[in-house]
């Protein structure tokens, strides 16, 4: 009853404030000038990013340096998480010992196999069409990371490691992605003297669709990097609790 009173009070106050404010608020109907500039220039115009998807062209071209450092923050966070769970060589060897045996009934396991193949295709489609439709490297990478997560849930993490995707490999793939992003950002510096300039070094159009210059490359590398980074995080999180307690020397 006490909770209900609190909720009702909040609801009534919110409604009251809203009705009071409604007399003075005018809902926005026009664009801000900066937004209009981006809408006009993203594909046509002199300062074009050659991409019909305006959000992606702002993200990786007009405000590209912003996104570069955002990617840096994201990967620093993943490195920080890996450092918190740091294991030495023998411990990480021991964490890999285990039976790769599915714990769940057969239908779940078979469905997981099929879904993994479909999710990989869907995530690649999201990432590779970031310059045409909503989506892009980060979104695709998050979808990609679902596949190893499903495998961990259905088959245990040891199956993933036995088939070649362990933490070290995931970090290597992530580093390749980061290196690709950095190279794509720095290549124009050698040719024309701008950082993260996407025209005209990279092709603006190929195979019948606009590629958006460097946008497709950025999306591809970000896809790899995000997917592999999340996979490393999931692999660490799925180490059984007993093993970790043993490593930490916790008796409880």
């Amino acid at each position, binding site marked *: 009853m006490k909770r209900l009173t609190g909720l009702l009070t909040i609801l009534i106050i919110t409604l009251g404030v809203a009705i009071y404010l409604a007399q003075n608020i005018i809902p926005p109907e026009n664009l801000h000038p900066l937004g209009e500039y981006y809408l006009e220039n993203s594909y046509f115009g002199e300062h074009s990013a050659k991409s019909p998807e305006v959000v992606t062209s702002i993200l990786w071209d007009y405000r590209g340096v912003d996104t570069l450092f955002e990617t840096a923050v994201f990967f620093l966070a993943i490195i920080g998480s890996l450092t918190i769970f740091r294991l030495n060589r023998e411990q990480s060897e021991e964490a890999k010992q285990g039976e790769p045996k599915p714990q*769940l*009934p057969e*239908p*779940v396991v078979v*469905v*997981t196999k*099929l*879904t993994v193949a*479909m*999710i990989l295709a*869907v995530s690649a489609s999201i990432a590779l069409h970031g310059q045409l*439709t909503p989506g892009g490297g980060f979104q695709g990478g998050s979808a990609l990371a679902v596949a190893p997560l499903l495998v961990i849930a259905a088959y245990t993490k040891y199956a993933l490691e036995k088939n070649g995707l362990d933490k070290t490999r995931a970090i290597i793939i992530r580093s390749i992605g980061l290196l690709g992003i950095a190279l794509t950002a720095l290549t124009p510096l050698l040719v024309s003297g701008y950082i993260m300039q996407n025209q005209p070094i990279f092709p603006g159009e190929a195979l019948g669709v606009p590629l958006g210059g460097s946008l497709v490359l950025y999306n591809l590398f970000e896809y790899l990097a995000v997917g592999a980074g999340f996979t490393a995080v999931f692999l660490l999180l799925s180490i059984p609790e007993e093993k970790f307690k043993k490593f930490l020397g916790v008796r409880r």
Partner: protein
Amino acid sequence: MNILFLLGAILVTIGGICDLFGAIGLLKFPNFYVRLHAATIGTIGGAAIPLFGVALLALGTNIPHKHAIAGASLITGIITLLAAPAGATALAYAAHKTNAVEWKPKIDHLKEARK
């Protein structure tokens, strides 16, 4: 108003009705195992079928990128169709294995088989 649009709208409406019944069932049924059946109504009738309906709706209109919208909802629907039963089976298996639910079934062959 073409036939695809109409069919899609009907499927989405069916989805809404199924969701309503699923919600009522979740509230009304006595224990976890019986509630799972109501949840199935919510996932198949209430999620997969309206997703197919959205695909038909998108094909029936004239918006830009309509094939992308239709394809995305179709694939999402198929993945739902595959994943929903796996999730239900995993939940039921876990609940039965840990004996987490108190219920009085008419017969329980699995319990007899486990003994």
